[in-house]
């Protein structure tokens, strides 16, 4: 069966005809051309396809597009700041070498974004817990943890500055 799927994708309302058996990952990559959503495994094992659904990370490769009716969906493409500026997390992943080959990076940044929206200054344990479903094969995770810590510190400093100003 085909239906009209209405959702908010990276801040913009969309309506698309989708088959009931269409996976969210295929909808995002093929229909919406959001190719940051990566297929790294054969279903739910690696975390490269994570997107935010109503603010929470979800594996797009084992989610049906039709289940996202009315939802607010965000992919890595939608996480940059105004004017395409790098978010603190994106900048930290870049500057601290949290991304080597970059294939797991979309999922990593999505998981870390959800964490930092909820927890302003997560300790290392909280960062590890938030990223435990995201596999990376390049970094040994050392610089990924560093990147999240760096971004969190920068965001906290910005907020302090704002509050003071």
């Amino acid at each position: 069966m085909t239906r009209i799927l209405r959702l908010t994708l990276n801040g913009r309302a969309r309506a698309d005809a989708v088959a009931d058996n269409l996976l969210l990952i295929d909808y995002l990559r093929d229909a919406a051309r959001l190719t940051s959503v990566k297929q790294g495994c054969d279903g739910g094992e690696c975390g490269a396809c994570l997107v935010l659904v109503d603010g929470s990370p979800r594996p797009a490769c084992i989610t049906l597009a039709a289940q996202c009716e009315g939802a607010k969906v965000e992919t890595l493409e939608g996480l940059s700041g105004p004017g395409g500026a790098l978010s603190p997390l994106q900048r930290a992943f870049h500057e601290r070498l949290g991304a080597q080959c970059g294939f797991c990076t979309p999922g990593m940044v999505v998981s870390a974004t959800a964490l930092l929206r909820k927890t302003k200054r997560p300790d290392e344990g909280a960062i590890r817990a938030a990223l435990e479903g995201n596999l990376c094969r390049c970094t040994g995770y050392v610089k990924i943890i560093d990147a999240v810590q760096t971004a969190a510190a920068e965001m906290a400093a910005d907020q302090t500055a704002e509050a003071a100003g």
Partner: protein
Amino acid sequence: MNAPARTATRAAGTRTPLVDGIEKVTGRARFTADLAGDAAVARILRSPVAHGVIRRIDTTAAEALPGVLAVVTGADCAHPFGVLPIAMNEYPMARDRVRYRGEPVAAVAAVDAATAARALKAIELQIDPLPAYFTATEARAPDAVLLHDDKPGNVEREVHHVFGDPDAGLAEADLVRTATFTCAEINHAQMEPHAAVAEWVPGREELIFHSVTQVPFYTHKHLARCLEMDPAKIRLVKPFVGGGFGSRTETLNFEIIAGLLARRTGGRVALVLSREETLISHRGRPETEVTLALGMRADGRLTACKAEVVMRGGAYAGYGIVTILYAGALLHGLYDLPNIRYDGYRVYANLPPCGAMRGHGTVDVRHAFETLVDRMAHELDLDPFTVRRANLLEAPLFTPNGLMVNSYGLPDCLDRVEAASGWKERRGKLGPGRGLGMACSHYVSGAAKPVHWTGEPHAVVALRLDFDGAVTALTGAPEIGQGSSTMVAISVADTLGIDVGRVRVVCGDSATVPKDNGAYSSRITFMVGNAAIGAARNLRTELAQAAAAKLEADPADIDCAGEVFSVRGSAQSQLTWAEVVAAALAVDGPITVKGSFTTPEKAQGGGHRGGAVGSTMGFSYAAQVVEATVDVDLGRITVDRVWVALDCGFAINPLAVEGQIEGSVWMGMGQALMEETRYAEGLPLHASLLEYRVPTIADSPPIEVHIVESVDPLGPFGAKEAGEGALSGFPPALAAAVADAIGLDMDALPLSPDRVLEALVAKRRAAQRAKRREDA
């Protein structure tokens, strides 16, 4: 001294984020599968049988299905391919005979995935089974059917190398120990599954080919060969690549298949493999059995080594000959050990072909060596550091097997990790179940002889300078996440005295870049770095002439730093970059220069058969200490912390060097703790990322990196490799930590909970038996 001083204005030696990093963190990076667009969907039909003769492939019904655009089989390509010109025995799709479960036998292109899947089911395939062999022992049995008729005993290559007098060496020793180590087969499990997008351009009869390859040049060659095309009619593009670690260091069957299907459809096809298929494509580290005898004097001095290595290589040659040669060659070059005997056997079996994987050839042998050294040190009541220090080399030298060692930072590496880990103060005092272990390792900085010998330089970099003032570096060196493009940018910028941001690196499109052998054997920094410096020097010469003309000075006196040209010793005469570029272009228009690198003859190894493998311009050296805790109830090991020091000669980009060291240590941890393939009659039980276990962040320790800079005389800025050398030290350091923690010696990898627990149970039983004997 070729290493630059670290100053604020020098690019080399400065922590530099990757020049292609922004795309990765914003989602703009396009990997091969991202380029599929509306391409036809291709799928591969794979053999369900491990070994057999193909009696019939009937594709009529598949071809008749609406929406099916093309079907190809082994009959469509009669040319074998393979990494070594002397060992090409693999076809993109099996012809006549299949040799492993999962080997491609046919492929389809269709309008969508569902149609392609239906088409695969519609192909009739009849295979008469032959006896199949899944272990090296079975395959080597006297009555075993041969996988390849020209390889008696199913042995792809035997190697017997003797240097010095190993028997006399063992006779001199105070302690001789022999042990056999079994290391499981592992896979690269790079995060990006294999993919190729191929486009046939009708009318021009050209092929535009995108792939995940680490070796675009080899793939270009093999596409031309297998498709019987003029290489000039092929454009090979390497988009962003999601890791390699050796999995894409040779042309792979799916790449040729994608090319065949594109031509047959006359359009674009996307062949994106599943994770299962990617694991079946394999080319990983083979299951290896190492039997090792070492002689040691009471003071820790090693006297001799005898090693017998058997590798189960899978069904086709791949890199097998190189792997079995590396395993023996790299017994040399780490320690001063003149007496070495090596016997290696690379064996065919009915399993997916093995290949090159990070630390190619050396990892399992180094594990055995270091582990046995640790045990012998314990037996002789010597500190493991003392034993290593008793066996150090003194560079420069040539090893007994002819390997050139010009720089040797291992002593510093030992000092650094010994101090950082608190080895002297903490070892033996960590409490029950906790221990410290250490090990050393090394790796080549580029194979001094490429597998495809052409006589050309090993690396060429071209630079273009035009009106916009940007310096465009053209390199065939495939950036696959390791940071090679950033290394090129830094090398060029530093040599010219300009900002890294002014250098634009173009890599991986055969239409524009000079040929490069590829991303393997840790060759890029050493070879391409030197070529980049050479090219930049040539550009500097042209710019200096232009500047000198304007400043009325001798070109030899012109300096450029911070994008400002000046006459040495004069504060007044200065020109901006733009002014000098304008002046230089006015001479003869836009400038194109190149630089190249060729390995010196003396670096190319000994004259014995196979002596080129292992030869290199310089070795990286590493020492590491691992702290681990063992839960004896569950047999579970926790890696608490790692201290690692690596001599990379000079860190052109310390940020990337750290990343490479961390990643390689961690990959060694995966092999040491949990990674292994397993087959049920040749079917991969590990065919997913749930069953092929890559460590999660929750399993991964902090890794403290110390960079040691021995400044190699031939390296670019003194640099050597950084991405492989530390890997092979991790498994033995962990085994030593486990021995230190609970007194348990393990002879198998990985040190998985079941193996640890079973060894503990066996040890307890043995102790009980011994006690009963004593009581009796």
